[in-house]
């Protein structure tokens, strides 16, 4: 059996039987329930068309799902360092790259759970429209691309942080900084705004979703917006492949 699979299994057990995974997914479902109920019932909220309601739920599901995944990833290395459990892991005959890969895969099971939990909500809002199948494909592909990239970033922050608090704070700040531009209306209308959207892996992913869901663009029309999340995945993977032995250490990694 691959050694990263052994690490991933152990980490998955810790995440799901240790209670963190179920609690985060429960909190995620409570938030989506409130959003879905308001979208479905509250006339005063706005005049959301069904496509818009599905798109809004999809975007919230991705943003909050990525947030939950990043929280777990931010704890993955710095947390073990603080709890003095990293030493035991480093003593095992598992290469550091396999440790990083195992931790990434186990963290992404939380994202997979968020995707599964989102399905009933998307179904409730979009079942009478043709948009449901599109929403499911988009969360599975675009959402996963964004989640893998940002989870890699959080894992990197965790390896480079002095303490778990720093790691969590920096990861949350990064997510907030990336999420804020998605709330500004008309960002891609000027070339500067468009550039800012394109270099931001979260905003560009969200832009792609909206273009398909609301503006009914074809899947190829805005494909270039997915370059930024794809590059984030590539960059974080490359960093871990090259520098994992220096990043995963008992003391904070130094450049």
């Amino acid at each position, binding site marked *: 059996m691959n050694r990263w699979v052994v690490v991933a299994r152990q980490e998955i057990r810790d995440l*799901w*039987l*240790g*209670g963190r995974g*179920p*609690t985060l*997914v*429960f909190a995620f*479902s*409570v938030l*989506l*329930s*409130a959003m*879905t*109920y308001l*979208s*479905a*019932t509250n006339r005063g909220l706005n*005049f*959301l*068309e*069904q*496509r*818009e*309601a599905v798109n809004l739920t999809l975007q919230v599901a991705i943003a909050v799902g990525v947030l939950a995944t990043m929280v777990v990833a931010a704890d993955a290395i710095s947390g073990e360092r603080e709890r003095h459990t990293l030493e035991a892991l480093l003593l095992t005959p598992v290469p550091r790259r396999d440790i990083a890969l195992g931790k990434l895969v186990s963290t992404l099971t939380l994202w997979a759970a968020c995707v599964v*939990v989102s399905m*009933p*909500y998307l*179904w*409730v*809002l979009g*079942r*009478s429209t043709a948009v449901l199948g599109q929403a499911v494909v988009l969360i599975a592909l675009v959402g996963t691309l964004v989640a893998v990239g940002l989870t890699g970033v959080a894992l990197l922050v965790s390896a480079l942080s002095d303490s778990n608090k720093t790691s969590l704070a920096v990861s949350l700040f990064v997510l907030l900084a990336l999420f804020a531009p998605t709330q500004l*209306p*008309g960002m891609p*209308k000027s070339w500067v705004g468009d550039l800012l959207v394109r270099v931001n892996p979260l905003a560009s992913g969200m832009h792609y979703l909206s273009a398909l869901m*609301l*503006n*009914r663009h074809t899947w190829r029309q805005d494909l270039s917006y997915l370059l930024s999340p794809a590059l984030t995945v590539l960059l974080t993977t490359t960093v871990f492949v090259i520098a994992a032995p220096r990043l995963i250490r008992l003391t904070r990694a130094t450049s």
Partner: protein
Amino acid sequence: MIRLLATLGALLAASTPTPQPPGGVQVSLDQERISASIGQVLTLDTTVTNPGSAPTDRLIAHLNVASLDGVYVDLEDWSGDVTRVVEPIPAGGDASVEWEFQAVNTGNFDVYVVLLPGGSATAGRGPLVASPPVHVTVAPRQELNSGGALPVTIAVPVLLGLGVLATTRRRRRTA
């Protein structure tokens, strides 16, 4: 000598095409009728054609929405981008402008584009040119089924909450 220069000047002026006000320009839209539901984002393509022998001056294209049922239309709600500049079009050429707007009222509407002179030589001159109207029928919102949403919004967190309780109890037992 002066007469010669004046004649030359007149000849040069005649050979340089003078920018024209939008009177001779034609504007058309790619659709005639649109049926939409409230909140839907719609797209229209406008083609501005210059069939004349002189280039147009800079033009301003303006999107308008008129209600046929007397409903108050706040254009700003339909689109935040209703005024576009159309750069001078050479003789026989054309230019296209794409509009994106959201149907925010229910009822029957005509959406049309007006061309106004926008260059320094033609501003305030000539007749305006309007496109044929696109008839937009906006149906009321298809209500989401709140009755269907409630069981799901309750059942999913309850099931996951039970999962959390089960893992907590299991942890306590094994601790």
